[in-house]
């Protein structure tokens, strides 16, 4: 295995976070909610991606990030206005940057023409569409450029927020820094030139090269590092900005940084001492960080050697690399050691844990729940009094087990934000491909759901959004003609409802064209020409297999996947999807999913001597029907009258092929269940054993898929019980198949 792999994996993980930060920041700027710190955060995100990419030699990613960063820097310095058009370009640039990250990851290829056009657009931003601003460094940016153009940097001296460093003006209270690259730094593809360029952008001056350690040419190792550099920076540059430059070289390039104000006071604050202790190698690498600075400190000189020695004594361990996120604390003020320590503690409050470890923990807790249930069963079989100490202890154990289970599940719970954040890009791309104007509104991004569910949300949401924009929204002209704003609104919302997560995708478009849907369904033979359907039933025809065809699938929403596939994939997760539509006003797709795929609250029932678990979320009520509430329908069918309405009566034992003939519903128990798409049905079982939370064990993973069975579980007595797939059982197609079987086969 490549020894760099783990580092790369971490880099890509961080990239994902940075990209999310970037997009969130740009969207905030687009909506006018952003401020200076938002621009800083966006800049830092791109800068971080670039820095990490440089360390791994992802050249094209570095180059594009550099161009992007240059434009963002212009925005940060005020040279480029934060106006909607520029932010839109940057949003599209973030998409291209994401493509570069994917390419570096080996998961795709960047569209070079698109990347080049994007880079040119970004460069156009910084040149103000007219005269290009002068670049502070040389004529080229990081050597040859695959985009065939030279990105233009903003001349910070001319920017409104210019720091105007003047080499010949002595400014007391400035920064002094010294750094000594190591061989390792160069070996990782980093270069002193890049660091110095970044420092120049911050206003570095009096850059001085210290080459006394350089050997004779003949004894020189061309890949070893002998030189060190020192420079001065204006005092108003935030310390974090300077340290950011060295973020990606870390210990490979010891850095000494001091503010002259601290020197003047004659005593460095503890935070500074700690910072000087950041790199223990510093002392040996840098004899005197300021030996090469041209002018002595304006006030009482400080014994830097003593300072370094104090730093070594006080901070023997390298300080954590994580630094406060806020970068522009006013320089020259007292550094708040306590505040920084607080922030460092906040950073340390989260840890990255391998998902496998969390999954293992969840599995073990699942076993604990099963074990606890088995123990409870044994105790109950022993006929101990409920007030006995064993029974009380067991109750406490049960409560504790539940708490542990909830807490462990919470570890894996994540906000749906990670999925929602990918959607604005999708919407932009579809809008541009369909030439529609679309505004995506997201709600409930912080709604939490288990990671196993999150991972599977992306595809259905993607498809529903595609569908909403491509089929739901009208063209801007049609909208205006209909008296609507040219820009359509697509709303993506997440919320918790009755122990499930509900995702809604709604649009303010034309709504479902019911006559057309009906015609298509008739022409495809999906319904009889004279079938009498309610509006809701017509709307739900689009979920029927075979409804989507080449005729109705466009490049955008189609991709060969019909809504029936979406529906089935959602059902496979224990979810449901439904649609409601108002002609001329729009449609809403509602998808509801369990919060986790690991546990389930279920009703344990008996059917034909088998123990089954029915998900509690599907059960509306349980009842014992009176004989005259049951009406026969055809040779084998029956319906149950429930408060004036008739619902199909399904004998679960027969449906699962465990007995040939249905039992008398009046003798058993009936579960009134509801499916969002298939309406209601009454399931006949023999008896109810009780309600409990069960740990879901996948049948597909451990055995194979079984029709009408969602999964399995282990009960307290150690027996395996099957979990009923209620939607599948009451699905009309399943029932028809069942009814078409000869009686003998059903047994």
């Amino acid at each position: 295995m490549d020894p760099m792999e783990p580092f790369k994996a971490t880099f890509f993980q961080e990239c994902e976070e940075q990209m999310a930060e970037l997009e969130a920041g740009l969207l905030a700027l687009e909506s006018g909610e952003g401020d200076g710190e938002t621009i800083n955060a966006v800049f830092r995100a791109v800068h971080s991606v670039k820095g990490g990419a440089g360390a791994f030699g992802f050249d094209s990613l570095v180059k594009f990030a550099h161009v992007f960063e240059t434009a963002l820097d212009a925005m940060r310095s005020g040279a480029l206005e934060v106006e909607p058009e520029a932010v839109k370009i940057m949003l599209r640039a973030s998409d291209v940057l994401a493509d570069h990250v994917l390419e570096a990851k080996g998961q795709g290829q960047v569209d070079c023409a698109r990347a080049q056009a994007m880079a040119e657009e970004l460069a156009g931003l910084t040149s103000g569409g007219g005269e290009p601003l002068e670049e502070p460094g040389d004529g080229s940016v990081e050597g040859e450029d695959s985009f065939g153009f030279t990105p233009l940097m903003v001349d910070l001296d001319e920017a409104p927020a210019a720091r105007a460093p003047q080499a010949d003006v002595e400014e007391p209270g400035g920064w002094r820094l010294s750094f000594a690259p190591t061989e390792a730094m160069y070996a990782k593809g980093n270069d002193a030139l890049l660091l110095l360029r970044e420092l120049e952008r911050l206003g570095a001056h009096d850059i001085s090269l210290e080459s006394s350690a350089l050997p004779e040419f003949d004894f020189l190792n061309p890949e070893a590092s002998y030189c060190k550099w020192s420079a001065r920076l204006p005092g108003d540059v935030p310390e974090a900005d300077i340290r950011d430059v060295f973020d990606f070289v870390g210990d490979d390039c010891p850095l000494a940084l001091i503010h002259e104000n601290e020197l003047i006071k004659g005593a460095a604050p503890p935070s500074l001492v700690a910072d000087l202790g950041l790199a223990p190698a510093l002392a040996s690498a840098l004899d005197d960080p300021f030996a090469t600075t041209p002018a002595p400190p304006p006030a009482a000189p400080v014994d830097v050697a003593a300072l370094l020695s104090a730093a070594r004594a006080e901070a023997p361990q390298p300080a954590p690399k994580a630094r406060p996120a806020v970068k522009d604390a006013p320089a020259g003020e007292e550094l708040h050691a306590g505040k920084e320590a607080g922030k460092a503690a906040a950073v340390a409050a989260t840890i990255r844990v391998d998902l496998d470890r969390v999954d293992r923990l969840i599995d073990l807790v699942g076993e604990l729940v099963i074990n606890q249930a088995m123990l409870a069963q044994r105790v109950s079989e022993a006929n101990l009094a409920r007030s006995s100490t064993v029974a009380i202890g067991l109750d406490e154990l049960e409560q504790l087990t539940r708490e542990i289970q909830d807490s462990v599940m919470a570890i894996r719970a994540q906000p749906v934000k990670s999925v929602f954040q990918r959607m604005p890009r999708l919407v932009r791309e579809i809008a541009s491909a369909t030439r529609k104007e679309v505004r995506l509104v997201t709600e409930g991004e912080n709604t939490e759901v288990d990671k196993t569910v999150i991972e599977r949300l992306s595809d259905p949401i993607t498809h529903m959004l595609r569908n909403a924009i491509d089929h739901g929204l009208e063209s801007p002209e049609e909208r205006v003609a209909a008296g609507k704003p040219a820009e359509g609104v697509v709303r993506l919302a997440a919320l918790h409802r009755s122990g499930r997560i509900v995702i809604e995708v709604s649009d303010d478009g034309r709504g479902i064209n019911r006559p057309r849907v009906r015609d298509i369904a008739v022409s495809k033979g999906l319904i009889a020409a004279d079938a009498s359907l309610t509006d809701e039933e017509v709307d739900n025809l689009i979920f029927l297999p075979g409804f989507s065809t080449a005729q109705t699938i466009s490049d955008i929403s189609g991709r060969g996947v019909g809504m029936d596939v979406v529906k089935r994939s959602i059902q496979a997760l224990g979810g449901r999807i439904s649609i409601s539509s108002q002609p001329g006003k729009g449609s809403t797709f509602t998808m509801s999913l369990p919060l986790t795929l690991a546990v389930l609250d279920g009703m344990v029932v008996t059917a034909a001597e088998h123990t089954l678990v029915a998900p509690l979320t599907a059960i509306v009520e349980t009842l014992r029907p009176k004989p005259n509430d049951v009406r026969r329908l055809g040779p084998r069918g029956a319906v149950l009258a429930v408060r004036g309405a008739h619902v199909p009566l399904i004998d679960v034992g027969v449906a699962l092929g465990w007995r040939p003939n249905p039992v008398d519903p009046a003798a058993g128990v009936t579960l009134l269940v509801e499916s969002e798409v298939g309406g209601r049905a009454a399931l006949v079982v023999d008896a109810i054993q009780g309600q409990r939370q069960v740990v879901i064990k996948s049948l597909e993973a451990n055995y194979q898929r079984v029709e009408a069975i969602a999964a399995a579980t282990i009960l307290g007595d150690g027996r395996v019980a099957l979990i009923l797939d209620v939607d599948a059982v009451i699905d009309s197609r399943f029932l028809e198949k069942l009814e078409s079987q000869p009686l003998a086969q059903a047994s």
Partner: protein
Amino acid sequence: MELPRILDLGAAGPLWSNLSEHRGGALDLDASKVERIGGLCVQILLAAVRSWRSADKPVRIRDASDAFIACARTLGAMELVELAEAG
């Protein structure tokens, strides 16, 4: 001797070898194509200039590109900047 366009980590070893071959003779460097010099190559060029000078051999950097001068200046290698500007 013509200096390559990019003088980075990958170019450091070959640059040292190529310069070594000219040991004993004049150091006449054509820097017209240079687009970037990194820290490592600046060290090599500096060491070469000093060694050649101490051996009393002529040293010249001619037709230096703007990028060469800008990089050398950014890196604080004023010896190289002066040589390049003198042509």
